[in-house]
């Protein structure tokens, strides 16, 4: 799956790449499949390692949230020469207090999910940290929509996402 030759890189500049993954809520056995596949796609397009790393983390967290909380969801991605846009939309319980949910350490995950090492309240903060733009909308009883943009331009060390 791994690419990254010059030819592939040039090809990646010619057009946009789009796709989507259907995520089934509660299916922990397939957790990470969508993010791993997206990571392979990004690598095959020759996208810079650090950008791939950030996009993979953000996508994995979004995928996990659908699996942990929702009935079902869709993860969509659009890759352009400028950015990687990831949109996660689910049919789920929704988030009552988004501000609270964005706080590191806050989680509504059940005990058995926490025992697996998920539900530590780091998912949404991890998504935000690894994105250049982060939008979240949620309606209780209907679902949640997260949109993340990771820009492909490489900035100097000055930009910090680790706070």
């Amino acid at each position, binding site marked *: 799956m791994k690419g990254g030759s010059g030819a592939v890189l040039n090809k990646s500049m010619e057009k946009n790449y789009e796709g989507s993954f259907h995520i089934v809520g509660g299916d922990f056995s397939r957790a*990470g*499949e969508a993010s*791993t596949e997206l990571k392979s796609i990004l690598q095959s397009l020759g996208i810079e390692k650090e950008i791939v790393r950030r996009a993979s*983390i953000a996508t994995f*967290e979004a995928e996990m949230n659908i699996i942990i909380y929702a009935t079902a969801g869709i993860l969509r991605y659009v890759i352009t020469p400028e950015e990687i846009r990831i949109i996660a939309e689910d049919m789920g319980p929704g988030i009552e207090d988004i501000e609270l949910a964005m706080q590191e350490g806050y989680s509504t995950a059940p005990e058995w999910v926490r025992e697996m*090492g*998920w539900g*530590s309240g780091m*998912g949404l903060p991890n998504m935000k940290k690894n994105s250049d733009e982060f939008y979240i909308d949620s309606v209780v009883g209907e679902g949640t929509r997260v949109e993340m943009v990771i820009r492909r331009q490489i900035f100097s060390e000055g930009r910090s996402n680790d706070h």
Partner: protein
Amino acid sequence: MTIKELVEVLDAEVLTPELSLDLEVKGGYVSDLLSDVMAHAKEGDLWITLQTHLNIVAVASLKSVSGIVVVNNRRPGAETLKKAVEEGIPILTTPHTSFEIAGRLYQFLNAEKV
């Protein structure tokens, strides 16, 4: 230092004999919280954890860690090991605690640098 060289140091048993242990270990990370591992583990780290379920392989694979050491004599199930072989993530188990394993790994990696 490769995983192969560390097996004895960590008193470990290799649970994925199908896989090569020649991967280089560049560092280590100790955590049982998967989002924390996703946020902070580095490529080439040896991941020390007590988690044994299937998702550890996906996290390890996404982060390109060199391998997983499961501590306290815990043993991942067949499903986890099968996935690990598919993804090329070596899994070891050891009777020691995370503290002990991290200490040994730290000592050996640093001794190598001198």
